[in-house]
């Protein structure tokens, strides 16, 4: 058991990351790039907001829809279709996100909407897959015991199947959100805005300061989102079925 209740992960990775971050910050400052970047402060604030809207809307919709679809596919009544659907989902997952965005652009034109839909689809797929596989991996005898004690289908889902699949579902959500935040800059290419604007324009103009003004917040955002979902996974998955909590 874990006496302090705090994560038992080693402190090494955070120390290494901290050291790298410090080195990078010092490098930026010394080379004058930091000053360059700060000239884009207003743009950064504006574009971060735009970026967060892209990520927030596509991500949250994907979580809701993905978990819902995954649960639906795992129902016994869907058994006939589930495997085939999951195969299709796997295939669709292997299409690069840039391809999905391009596809959305040809269907929905340019702007934020196709970008959000494209990101939504890219995020949705791993969540569906993990939810479905997570629920299917819940041992049959648990469901049998639940049924034998007089739980209805709803109670079995919410009190037995979902809690026991939650760790795997969260793993899917984390992966999906990493993909989402990581590919959100590409949304700029189809007119979706976001931090990609600074990155791609910076590349085109060979303005390193501008490029980094987009790239660094993107990276920080990705780390923050992963940290957030990591913490959610740690605290929300019951201790008895949470391998991170060493119970």
């Amino acid at each position, binding site marked *: *058991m874990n006496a302090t209740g705090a994560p038992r992960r080693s402190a090494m990775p955070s120390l290494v990351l901290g050291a790298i971050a410090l080195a990078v910050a010092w490098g930026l400052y010394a080379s004058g790039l930091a000053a360059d970047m700060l000239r884009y402060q207003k743009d950064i604030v504006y574009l971060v907001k735009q970026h967060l809207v892209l990520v927030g809307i596509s991500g949250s919709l994907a979580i809701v829809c993905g978990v819902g679809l995954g649960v639906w596919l795992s129902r016994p009544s869907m058994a006939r279709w589930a495997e085939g659907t999951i195969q299709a989902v796997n295939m669709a997952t292997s299409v690069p996100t840039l391809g999905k965005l391009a596809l959305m652009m040809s269907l929905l034109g340019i702007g934020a909407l196709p970008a959000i839909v494209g990101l939504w689809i890219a995020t949705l797929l791993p969540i569906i897959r993990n939810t479905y596989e997570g629920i299917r991996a819940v*041992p049959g*005898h*648990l469901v*049998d*015991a*639940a*049924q*034998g*004690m*007089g*739980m*209805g289908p709803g*109670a079995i889902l919410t*009190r*037995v199947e979902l*809690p*026991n699949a*939650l760790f795997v579902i969260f793993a899917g959500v984390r992966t999906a959100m990493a993909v989402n935040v990581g590919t959100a800059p590409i949304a700029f290419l189809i007119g979706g805005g976001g931090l990609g604007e600074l990155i791609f324009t910076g590349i085109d103009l060979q303005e390193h300061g501008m490029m980094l003004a987009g790239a660094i917040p993107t990276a920080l955002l990705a780390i923050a989102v992963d940290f957030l979902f990591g913490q959610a996974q740690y605290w929300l998955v*019951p*201790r*008895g*079925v949470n391998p991170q909590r060493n*119970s």
Partner: protein
Amino acid sequence: MIRLDALTKVYPTAQGAVAAVDRVSLEVADGETCVLLGPSGCGKTTTLRMINRLVAPTSGKITIGGRDTDDVDPVELRRTIGYVIQQIGLFPNMTVAENIGVVPRLLGWTAEKRRRRAEELLAMLALDPAQFLDRYPNELSGGQAQRIGVARALAADPPVLLMDEPFGALDPVNREVIQDQFLRMQRTLRKTVLFVSHDIDEAVKMADRIAIFRAGRLVQFAAPDTLLAHPADDFVASFVGTDRTLKRLRLIRVREIMLPGVAGEARAAGRATVTPDDDLRRVAALFLEHDLDALPCVGPDGSVVGRVTRADVAARLAAGAGAES
């Protein structure tokens, strides 16, 4: 009382319809433990699962306490029947207290009442509530988990318990301990228990009545002593084993055949003695070990209360053998 009336379950297979359970009729009185015994695939588990309607019967009737289970909503029905399975099936996402509280919660008990009930049951099973209530199943040993499985089944105090090889996954030592504990509890709780087993020793130990199954049919339904004395056919005889007489000895207590004590034997100190609660297996062992024909029985204070003789043991075995089936 549980009554099965021509209970049948037919499964369609590639080779045609197969009757997993074939016109089984039996009656278990209130407070009795009935062990369904037989080799794997004989239909005993299917029979059990039809009682709480996890399996829908093809035909036949089940009544519990005079009520046809067809007339009750299956989900409601299951909340009034305790259910223990071999894999235990404790929910790993819930603590011990939450696991025990599953059915009470379904029945709408308050959190406080559920916890008090869990404490009570743990204490009854000789598990320290303070230590176990908030543990997760992965922090329990096999024996502890199985005891909590039993506690969970008893949580809402159902009159009927269904147990599907509940102690099958335990090591022999632990199994004995839990069997004894369950028997002690059952003496005060008097639940109506249907217990699936493939182990004749377990059946003889736990059962008031044993139902032997073969290929979906009930071949014999009798008290353990009768079953051992009078196997209905060769299948039952081979299933109970060639040492069935030794098994019978275990069922009979010294007090049942004890003769009043003889004063002269009060100076029996140092010699082998038995107590009225010993079983005849121990008596037979002492007879053989010391080449005796009679043994004094002593009470808890060491005074002689009676004697048991070789002839009486033989007479008791013969009497059982003479009884009906």
